[in-house]
């Protein structure tokens, strides 16, 4: 079935270093969403990308959607301890109906002060 692959599974960085997580699909996606889950918390929607080659920024976070709409990335510049958590990408499930999303398994980011 449709899958969204996300790498890496874990990333440990020193505070101030950059961080990137990647999301890949074998099929063309209509859109891709990103969520953040803080430790002990629940996933919270960050952003949605729809257009081919789209780039969006939220402060130190940069989100990109590939030209072929099959991959996406989230880049954090100069990580801070507040960035700790698990970042998920998600895409519409074409095999399903009515708004299902397929989630990547997430990248767990830890930041050493």
């Amino acid at each position, binding site marked *: 079935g449709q899958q969204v692959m996300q790498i890496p599974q874990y990333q440990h960085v020193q505070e101030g270093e950059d961080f990137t997580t990647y999301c890949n699909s074998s099929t063309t996606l209509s859109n891709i969403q990103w969520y953040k889950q803080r430790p002990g918390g629940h*996933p919270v*929607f960050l952003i949605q990308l729809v257009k081919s080659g789209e780039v969006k920024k939220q402060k130190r976070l940069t989100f990109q959607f590939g030209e072929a709409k099959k991959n996406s990335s989230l880049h954090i510049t100069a990580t801070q301890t507040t960035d700790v958590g698990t970042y998920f990408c998600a895409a*519409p499930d074409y095999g399903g109906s009515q708004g*299902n999303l397929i989630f990547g*398994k997430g990248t767990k980011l830890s930041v050493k002060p």
Partner: protein
Amino acid sequence: DVKVTQSSRYLVKRTGEKVFLECVQDMDHENMFWYRQDPGLGLRLIYFSYDVKMKEKGDIPEGYSVSREKKERFSLILESASTNQTSMYLCASSFGTPGHEQYFGPGTRLTVT
């Protein structure tokens, strides 16, 4: 702000007990979802509902059932709890149009002993 609430943050049940997890959303969303989250396995969809009294199986429906009698409320039922159902259970809701973001509740940490 969208609010999704779940009946309990922590729950401890015995093997064989019937367990009810309730979820309520206040944004008039058509879609509601139940996921379980386990380390290394990401978010796995148990059941979802796109309308009152409508339900569809997700990826791991075995051992679970659901009920949606009112639009704002979606219940997950474990007919006979087993230890392998110890997990974090997350409820989410979204508008019905495909591609909308999902809003998650705080989660219920269920332990079955």
